[in-house]
């Protein structure tokens, strides 16, 4: 299925990547090409085939739900582009 300009714009919005209006047309073409390549999968019969969720047939390990570390505020904030008073700082979210 071909991806039109509107769909390309919607995908870019969902992905939170700002794409200038003038580039949406060529993006749509590019994405269409790749999605076209994926269409080959349509010819493959998958009746009664389970989707793979784990490549190794082992169960995920479990552990007790206990807190065993923490109190690392300084380390966590050390790479933040903007932090204030022990918090990450971002543009105003609530009016």
């Amino acid at each position, binding site marked *: 299925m071909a*991806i039109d300009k509107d*769909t*390309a714009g919607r*995908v*870019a*919005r*969902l*992905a*939170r*990547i*700002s*794409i200038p209006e003038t580039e949406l047309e060529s*993006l749509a073409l*590019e*994405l269409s*090409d*790749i*999605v076209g*390549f*994926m*269409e*080959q*999968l*349509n010819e*493959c019969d*998958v009746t009664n*085939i*389970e*989707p*793979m*969720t*784990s*490549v*190794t047939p*082992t169960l*995920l*390990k479990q*552990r007790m739900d206990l807190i065993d570390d923490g109190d*690392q505020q300084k*380390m*966590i904030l*050390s*790479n*933040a*582009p*903007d932090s204030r008073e022990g918090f*990450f700082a*971002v*543009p*105003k*979210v609530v009016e």
Partner: protein
Amino acid sequence: MESISQLTISEARDKLKKKELTSLEITQSCLKSIETSKILNAFSVITPEIALSQAKNADKRIASGDAPAMCGIPIGIKDLFCTKGVQTQAASHILDGFKPEYESTVTQNLWDEGAVMLGKLNMDEFAMGSSNETSTYGAVINPWRSSVSEVPLTPGGSSGGSAAAVAADLCLAATGTDTGGSIRQPAAFTGTVGIKPTYGRVSRWGVVAFASSLDQAGPMTKSVRDASIMLEAMASHDRKDSTSSNFPVPNFEAALTGDIKGKKIGIPNEYRMDGMSEEIEKLWSIGAEMLRDSGAIVVDVNLPHTKYALPVYYVLAPAEASSNLARYDGVRYGHRAKLKVNDNIDEMYSKTRAEGFGKEVQRRIMIGTYVLSAGFYDAYYRKAQRVRTLIKRDFDKVFDDGVDAILTPTTPSSAFPLGEMNSKNPIEMYLNDIFTVTVNLAGLPGISVPAGIDVDGMPLGLQLIGKPWDEGELLNTAFVLEKALKFSDKPKKWW
């Protein structure tokens, strides 16, 4: 030998043990080679202070008689591994200036063994690429040059810096990661050895995530013996990675007996592609003959769903990437776009991600977003997961029939010129992974061994695919192949 940095891990280990060399001497030789090889652009960061201090400690440890195999061995680390206090940015502008507060499990395992860090290695941005051209640091140049032209060639990708650094003897070995062929394809393009272990063999903790169900780290080395030594050091059970296996890590080097009598080697019919070069086809038959001469039984096998591997991969890998890369939003680390006064938080995200991610990464995030979006999830993502089950079943069946390993070419061509793919559509670049992606989709171990030189003087590789958790036997078969092929060429130094 012109330079100490040309040593293999096993040679250096033996010399260190016999006190013929110190780690400091090997490390200084590597640092000098790095210094005079900047044109290759293999390293993104050089860490001489860490290297020299680790080398001195290693020498003390060797003197005290406590020396694991990797002790005192200088290596390079792909920029995808978090290294405490050392710039780690997955070759992306969006992680500008990121200095992790923690160490990846793989690198910690290597330092615990006494290995020495020379620096970080260039790669494709977020490991997305097959030519090392999507890096924010610029492309890596392959130390190998064609005999007919001086055009700079790609070292392959995404572990292109690792492959180039090993091939050019800037380090004794390097770490790589492999999501669809990112260890094996660059190994093939540079005449080096690279192994992707079984999914779960090596911890993913602290390795910047691309596609979590496919990503595995592995060593890139100058010999199969070195790959065995270094893989053993990297592998471990890790409670910080829920997919890391608690199977014991065997002594891989001890598995190199050189005996493969009676082992069954499969040749998959579906890997004979239209338009495959005659040279590669010939090399493939030579490899099979050599294994036969060593006592193996060579049989034809069928992997009927092979042709769907690339479309499956290019649904699943971008889908997982779009989710993994959602964390780069300009809040916690890395780049944040300069905002206008009234810009809201959504604009901060969108502008930051538009500025921070390169074109290929953006493309893959958007493809991933599309296949996961409402209305398309079942048609693409779910469907691809189902076909993935079939691809794995193909391999299960072959191994159930008694086949021990599968022999294939690693790549459909030798290294191509930098820039060549720019004019082509992304799918042509994706075709580079055609022989390697199946292995990731099935979670199997795969190794590329340098096999020969093509008509233009460029190296080519053969790939062996093994049974899950059977890296020991796989390495042994690769060891036999390596001995029979006698590949010993090195790139002619022009840099």
